[in-house]
């Protein structure tokens, strides 16, 4: 009599790669089964929560018909996007764009401008918040403050706030009756309408400055906490030696501390820039600058141009993915942890 476990058929099944994981015989194989079992829920979540939706999104971006059933294949959303990006290029843009569109006319550079806005604004806010983050992390690590734990708690508080609340905080500070606006208005005697940073027409310098502070509100805490992790690993002996040998604090920072925290700074720049690109709620409330995430809202909620939104989202996703992984290669793996 043979039990199922001894039958030849079962033995063949067991010999396969998957079979060895499912029906282990040795301890190594059993350990492999444990790892697989521990990882299965994560892969299930990643599959249903991210992979399938993202593939569907890509399918949508190349679909001819998408309102009822997703069907047909076309590259026109991408052609439209790239033509628009081409049209934004200065001087030669019109020709580049015209060569890409079917009609031979230059496309509207709106997407090009939007993407450019996202990139430059993200870069400016990232650099600012990382510089401020270095200062904060430096002070928190090196100096003796009373209630340092409370200070860290306070600085990390905005991480829990969604972008819309960050925008409201900016209205509190810089709106028409905002604290800073009223204060400056009283000080200079100018009408607050010309001083307010929120509620200005989109794209004006004051409106962009208001959004700039709104971005900083979300980004400074993240940058600071990332850099705090880096600072915790700095070798303080070398700094003390430098100071004892007569280097000024500025020289010590520049020649001793900075080389040690450089990988951490690169990591903070990458992750903070990712944060900046993905900020949405703040822009939605303040409406100061047309960045990519804000464009999504208009594509989806105003005009139902789902295929272009999907194409733009695919490009956006691929960019952040490539950017992150390329940069992770150039920094240490510590960045991720």
């Amino acid at each position: 009599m043979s039990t199922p476990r001894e039958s030849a058929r079962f033995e063949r099944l067991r010999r396969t790669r998957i079979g060895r994981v499912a029906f282990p015989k040795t301890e190594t194989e059993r350990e492999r089964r444990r790892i697989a079992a521990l990882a299965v829920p994560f892969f299930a979540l990643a599959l249903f929560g991210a992979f399938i939706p993202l593939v569907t999104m890509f399918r949508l971006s190349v679909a001819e018909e998408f309102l009822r059933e997703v069907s047909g294949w076309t590259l026109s959303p991408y052609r439209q996007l790239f033509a628009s990006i081409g049209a934004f290029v200065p001087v030669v843009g019109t020709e580049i764009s015209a060569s890409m569109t079917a009609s031979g006319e230059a496309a509207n550079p709106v997407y090009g401008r939007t993407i450019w806005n996202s990139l430059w604004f993200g870069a400016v806010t990232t650099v600012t918040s990382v510089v401020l983050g270095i200062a904060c992390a430096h002070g928190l690590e090196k100096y003796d403050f009373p209630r340092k734990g409370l200070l860290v708690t306070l600085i990390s508080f905005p991480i829990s706030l969604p972008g819309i609340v960050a925008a409201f905080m900016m209205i509190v500070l810089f709106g028409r009756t905002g604290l800073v606006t009223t204060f400056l208005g009283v000080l200079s005697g100018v009408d607050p309408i010309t001083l307010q940073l929120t509620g200005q027409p989109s794209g004006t310098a004051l409106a962009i400055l208001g959004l700039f502070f709104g971005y900083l509100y979300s980004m400074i805490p993240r940058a600071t906490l990332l850099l705090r992790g880096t600072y915790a690993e700095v070798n303080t002996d070398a700094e003390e030696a430098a100071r004892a040998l007569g280097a000024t604090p500025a020289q010590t920072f520049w020649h001793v501390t900075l080389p040690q925290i450089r990988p951490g700074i690169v990591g903070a720049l990458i992750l903070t820039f990712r944060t900046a690109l993905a900020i949405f709620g703040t822009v939605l409330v303040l409406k100061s600058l047309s960045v990519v995430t804000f464009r999504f809202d208009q594509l989806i909620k105003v005009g139902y141009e789902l295929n272009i939104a999907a194409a733009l989202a695919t490009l956006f996703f691929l960019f952040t993915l490539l950017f992150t992984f390329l940069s992770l290669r150039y920094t240490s793996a510590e960045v991720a942890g």
Partner: protein
Amino acid sequence: MSRPGTDDPDPVTEAIPSREPGWFGQASARYGRVAVTGLIGLVVVFLIGPVVVTFVASFFQNWTGILPSGGLTLQNWQLALGIAESQGAQRGLGGFWTFVAPDVLFVLDLPVGPRFIFSLPFDMTVQTPIPVALGFSILLALFGVVLNLLVGVPIAYAVTRYEFTGRRLMNTFAILPIVPGIILGIAFLKTYPNLPSAIALVLGYSLLKIPYMILAVQSSFESMDLRQMEESARALGASWTTTFLRVIVPGAKQGIVSGSIICWTLAAAEFNFSYIVYSRGPRPFSLFLFENISNNPFLRAAAAISIYFLIVATVTALLNRLGENGFSIGGAR
């Protein structure tokens, strides 16, 4: 070692700073610490100042000058919670859900014999203790956390305890927020069109917040000698499953609790994804906040946001009792 000022500027000499500090060096020695401290003060005021002002202002009747004025009132809070008797109260948190039991519960209609009508002898109303939208959000975020726990604890253990090919890549994937919320929202639109908003939201929340859970649990696991614990328990006769559930998981209690708290709070206020995906059913809390911010009078919006501040403050206090500095573990993202 050559001195600065000699003729050949070899790279080693170049790297050595000059002995006499210039004006900048002197200034950095004298004012550097003050400047950095001042900067930190400024950052804290910038970050926390508006929070305090918003909270305080929500208790005042109006705010036109620099300071709020007009006496204290709870009106803003009542409107925001949707419990004031006023027009537009539905724009608040929806008020308390009143359950009214139907007069006729069910009718038993047998082919022979009389009809049986079951009914309650009196009207029954049940008031829920918290406003509907708030309660719904709390529940959604809670389901997200449960999913996060089921997914996050095992994977954190796998990458911390075991060595296997692809471990580092898996680790990177697990703790990097790969997909931004708004992109995931767009991806969800056509993928699960018939899924009720609530389920789509829970799925999205758990995916978006899983890195925080994994990071928190991992930091607990890293402070434990996992191999030794596992081997001791196995040697004493426990099966591997028992070891994992009754030795390993309880040992990482701190990370699990703080990870759950962080995930819950962040999911309760998740906006970007909810805004795109939400279509019908009870509104998540973040959309209620958005509606208040974009449509309502300033002080009422302030009260609505203050509800969330209260939640975060409670949560932060809890986290600090657990030994974390507020949301600092989330700083990695």
